[in-house]
């Protein structure tokens, strides 16, 4: 069975500091991995995805994520946080080897960036 874990309900960082939002996954085959961001009273916005190839994936708004197969992780990172990055972040996975399955989402991590 597929699953995603976001071990931190909330991450607090100061503006200008690097940020990391953690995600680990479990699939029986190879994963497609996604990060989404949700601002208050809005739907989810796609940030980036890992399909294959380079383990470091760059996405929107200066975010990047590193795929680590041995640790089954896909942590979201940004070198310098902005107050406007404060939002709810979701990691999601789909098993590449099981065609037609839906995305499985983590429970979300609230990122709070203080000025």
């Amino acid at each position, binding site marked *: 069975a597929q699953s995603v874990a976001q071990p931190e309900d909330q991450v607090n960082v100061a503006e200008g500091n690097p940020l990391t939002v953690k995600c680990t996954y479990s699939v029986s085959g190879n994963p*497609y991995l996604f990060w989404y961001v949700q601002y208050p009273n809005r*739907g*989810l916005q*796609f940030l980036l995805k890992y399909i294959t190839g380079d383990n470091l994936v760059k996405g929107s708004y200066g975010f990047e994520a590193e795929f680590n197969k041995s640790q089954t992780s896909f942590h979201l990172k940004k070198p310098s946080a902005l107050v406007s990055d404060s939002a709810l972040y979701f990691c999601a996975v789909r098993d590449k080897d099981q065609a037609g399955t839906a995305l499985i989402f*983590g429970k979300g991590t609230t990122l709070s960036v203080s000025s």
Partner: protein
Amino acid sequence: DVKVTQSSRYLVKRTGEKVFLECVQDMDHENMFWYRQDPGLGLRLIYFSYDVKMKEKGDIPEGYSVSREKKERFSLILESASTNQTSMYLCASSLGDRDNQPQHFGDGTRLSIL
């Protein structure tokens, strides 16, 4: 840009009512999805559809049904609304040819059942 439009941002209904939530996408996507979002539980999949007139149950289909008569429209139906169906409902769509495509979300419908 893909646009997924949900017909209502806020909706208040009474227990026992039949409730319709509408979702329309404008990018000719094959796949459409309905989720509910609750604090601490993340997103849970209710139903999804890979083509017109087809539907698949997600993780929590009980108390819900769906309709997809046209490719661009996917409706969620609460047959007899109950207070435990008070939630944020999110619709999404994606291209159907490859599973590596991201889903695009609407802004959600915040539904209150009184």
